[in-house]
């Protein structure tokens, strides 16, 4: 049985390689906000209040293009609706926590943290303080995201744009799913999701980000039925 501290540290260690993509992306995100002419305090407030990488950039871009704030807010909600799926997966492991703890831990659930903690949870179901792993990944991501966006806001885009560091984001997620390429059913689900995301890329409110997972999960359900 691992202690709370050990689990927390393990979470920090498991998530730290992803900082290679999260930190440059945070810097870019902060710098874009200032470049688009927004109040630096508000640009930072997004990192604290919304705390969701891609959705923050979309929010800024929609508003700078003169879009209605209602549409910008709705788009953020739709882009982040994928967290509902993460929550559904995590709920199984967080069931024993008190309601207040569930409310607190929810704030730090993000893509990479969910992915790494979920991998850990699957292998270590018996641990009593499992959620400390999620706190470890989530807090690490939170702290790095705050510092990265802040430094982007203060120092501007000191990461040269020619490096194309935004490309590190798809790479980080490739690193997360690449081992599942061994399983044919997962490959089919991934390809379904990927192709749907390209097909529906122009759907309103960036809804491709939730439409394609829903389609892919339907395919997963069909595959499960075939397996039987």
């Amino acid at each position, binding site marked *: 049985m691992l202690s709370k501290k050990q689990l927390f540290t393990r979470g920090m260690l498991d998530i730290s*390689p992803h900082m*290679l*993509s999260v930190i440059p992306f945070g810097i870019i995100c902060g710098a874009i906000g200032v470049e688009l002419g927004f109040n630096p305090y508000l640009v930072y*407030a*997004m990192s604290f*209040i919304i705390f969701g990488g891609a959705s923050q950039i979309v*929010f*800024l871009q929609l*508003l700078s293009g003169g879009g209605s*704030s209602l549409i910008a*807010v709705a788009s*953020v*909600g739709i882009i*982040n609706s*994928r*967290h*509902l*799926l*993460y*929550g*559904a997966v*995590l*709920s*199984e492991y967080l*069931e024993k926590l008190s*309601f207040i703890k*569930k409310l607190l831990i*929810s*704030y730090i659930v993000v*893509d990479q943290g969910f992915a790494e903690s979920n991998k850990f949870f699957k292998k270590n179901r018996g641990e009593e303080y499992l959620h400390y792993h999620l706190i470890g990944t989530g807090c690490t991501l939170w702290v790095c995201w705050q510092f990265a966006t802040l430094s982007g806001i203060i120092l501007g885009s000191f990461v040269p744009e020619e490096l*194309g560091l*935004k*490309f*590190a*984001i*798809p*790479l*980080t*997620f*490739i*690193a*997360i*799913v690449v*081992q*599942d*390429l061994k399983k044919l*059913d*997962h490959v089919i689900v*991934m390809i379904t*999701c990927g192709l749907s*995301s*390209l097909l529906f890329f122009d759907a309103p409110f960036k809804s*491709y980000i939730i439409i*394609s*997972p829903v389609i*892919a*999960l339907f395919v*997963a*359900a069909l595959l*499960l039925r075939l397996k039987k």
Partner: protein
Amino acid sequence: MTLTSIIFAGILTYLTRMTMIALISRDMLGDKIKAVLEYVPSAVFPAIIFPGIFINDYGTFIEINDPKIYGALVAIVVGYFSKNIIATISAGLISYWLLIFVIFN
């Protein structure tokens, strides 16, 4: 951009995170749904990966010889065999930089 709009966006985002964790109990999800949920990472992350590779900053499709395609392929091969996140990301980035700064230049 106003603080109000950020707060609304923040509340919506928080609700997406909190709803399933705090308001749903395990008994409400049947075994079939739980089996399907096993696929969540494979069903969600390609929606971030594919557009990140195949669609450029202006929202249009890239060309078939775009360096990102090769960078992603290298990352997949390195990731598959190394099982190492840093190696995967670095391999993808370095091969991408080699293509844009050395070979295609």
